[in-house]
């Protein structure tokens, strides 16, 4: 028990996390490739044509995982941020910073694929639907987080300011979600509404779940890659970085 805590703290230091992350990355890439392969196969070959939406519905296999990821990542990011504020561990801030761009990309993908789905289905690239609107606002929150961190030069300050923003955001995301939803249902005009997806066929469900797993693995792998870069940038002048094989020139 005691040992575990010590271990945990050991890996919370950038110095020991850096090589650990390096070892984990290839595994996550491999998993991402496997799940991605299976998922794509289901997407294009196993899943049957939808009798209502034709082939266009295949977008759902990336749209939904991207939308899920964009929300998950925000929560994970806020979690790291809270940890950083509470325990003052350096790694937490770096993790939050590494996750933000991936989260923003996921949010963007959900918007983009949604728009490319909406055009054939609704005849419009965009409608001011509750879900769409709150996804858009989530994207803005990500951009705000990234812009704030980019605008502050001192990394420690950037971490803390980012952490507060992420926490304020995480309180607000559900508020925003429900307020937009309510706004929309009260005023739903003559415009189109999201046709509730029919009870999904088992293949589709499986395809979506597997694609979601692939997105998970991808996100972890990229975030770890990025956190390694951030660790190096921040700790460039520490002894352990200077002793790294890849810096000494003996590795790679």
């Amino acid at each position, binding site marked *: 028990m005691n040992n575990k805590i010590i271990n945990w703290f050991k890996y919370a230091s950038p110095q020991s996390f850096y090589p650990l992350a390096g070892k984990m990355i290839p595994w996550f890439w491999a998993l991402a490739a496997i799940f991605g392969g299976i998922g794509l196969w289901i997407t294009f070959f196993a899943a049957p044509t939808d009798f209502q939406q*034709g*082939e266009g519905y295949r977008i759902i296999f990336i749209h939904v995982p991207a939308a899920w990821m964009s929300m998950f990542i925000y929560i994970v990011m806020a979690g790291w941020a809270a940890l950083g504020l509470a325990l003052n561990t350096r790694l937490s801030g770096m993790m939050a910073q590494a996750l933000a761009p991936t989260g923003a990309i996921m949010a963007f993908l959900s918007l983009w694929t949604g728009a*490319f789905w909406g055009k054939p289905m609704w005849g419009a690239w965009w409608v001011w639907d509750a879900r769409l609107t709150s996804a858009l606002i989530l994207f803005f929150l990500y951009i705000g987080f990234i812009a704030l961190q980019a605008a502050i030069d001192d990394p420690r300050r950037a971490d803390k300011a980012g952490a507060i923003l992420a926490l304020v955001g995480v309180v607000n995301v559900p508020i925003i979600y429900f307020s937009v939803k309510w706004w929309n249902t009260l005023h739903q005009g003559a415009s189109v509404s999201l046709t509730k997806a029919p009870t999904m066929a088992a293949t589709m469900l499986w395809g979506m779940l597997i694609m979601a797993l692939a997105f998970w693995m991808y996100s972890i792998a990229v975030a770890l890659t990025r956190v390694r*870069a951030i660790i190096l940038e921040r700790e460039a002048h520490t002894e352990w970085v200077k002793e790294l094989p890849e810096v000494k020139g003996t590795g790679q």
Partner: protein
Amino acid sequence: MNWESPAAFFAMGGYGLYVWGSFGVCALLMIAEPILASKRRKDILRSLRRERIAENLDQQ
């Protein structure tokens, strides 16, 4: 298999633009992002190595 020919596959039953527009951008971003992330690491490694060499030169 639900596709009669590669052409049918790419046409996606008339939804080709939309389906490939989505999957294309998705693939593009998911390829670009890891490349950029690892380039970021390589860049900092390169500058660290350069600094090290300069330091060694200074000491000599």
